[in-house]
């Protein structure tokens, strides 16, 4: 079933706050084959928050995660993520179109720190593979 067109422009509630600990960053660095020596989190770390926001959106719309394939991702940083940051992501559905039985869902997530200052803006293109695709 195609995703509801009226979703475009919908802003989802901010995700639960994530406290970025050194251990959390170390785990992420290790999972991408590196060794953490302190300092900023890797550039793609904000996906942890963006993914959390996306999951909440998919659950709210009863979209099955295993039918989602990642189409594109774009990060623009105001500053690096640092241990000690307390972050939350707010997701907006930016666009929606149907191509060949698939939904192409564009989302933007704003990741802000505890003061409300934006740390990173990230946009994702999600391809929702229809049952017949």
């Amino acid at each position, binding site marked *: 079933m195609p995703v509801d067109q009226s979703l475009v422009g919908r802003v989802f509630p901010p995700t639960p706050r994530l406290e970025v600990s050194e251990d959390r960053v170390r785990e992420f660095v290790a999972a*991408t084959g590196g060794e953490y020596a302190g300092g900023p989190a890797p550039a793609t770390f904000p996906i942890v928050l963006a993914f959390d926001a996306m999951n909440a959106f998919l659950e709210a719309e009863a979209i099955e995660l295993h039918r989602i394939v990642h189409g594109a991702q774009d990060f623009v940083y105001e500053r690096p993520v640092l241990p000690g940051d307390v972050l939350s992501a707010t997701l907006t559905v930016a666009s929606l179109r149907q191509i060949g039985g698939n939904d192409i869902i564009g989302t933007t997530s704003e990741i802000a720190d505890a003061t409300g200052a934006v740390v990173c803006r990230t946009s994702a293109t999600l391809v929702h593979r229809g049952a017949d695709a």
Partner: protein
Amino acid sequence: MSLETRTFTITRADLVGYAQASGDHNPIHQDETVALSVGLPGVIAHGMYTMALAARAVGDWFPGAQVVSLACKFTNPVVVPAEGGVELEIAGEVKGTEGDLTTVALTVTSGGQKVLGMPKAVVRA
């Protein structure tokens, strides 16, 4: 200016680790049956895992530099076999500098095929 090409190997165990660290537990990155059921050629790497390795290469090329922006399209899936692994090659080219900003165009291939579309990073060096 060309940057030194980096090569990484991706295994199924890496995908399990990345799922844990990132929170992305989509079964298409773990379970062959699910991946095939949605028309994929097999278990595929998280696009974000490939992008994380690309960011790692950028970090190796510009140690300590702040990443200002990072973007790519996921144009071809990286199929990860159950046994052994698949190689990912990350090449980079400095496209230009403006003030303290350097733009890097990457080429990310697996088995000779480009897997990312227009991967690009801007760093403050």
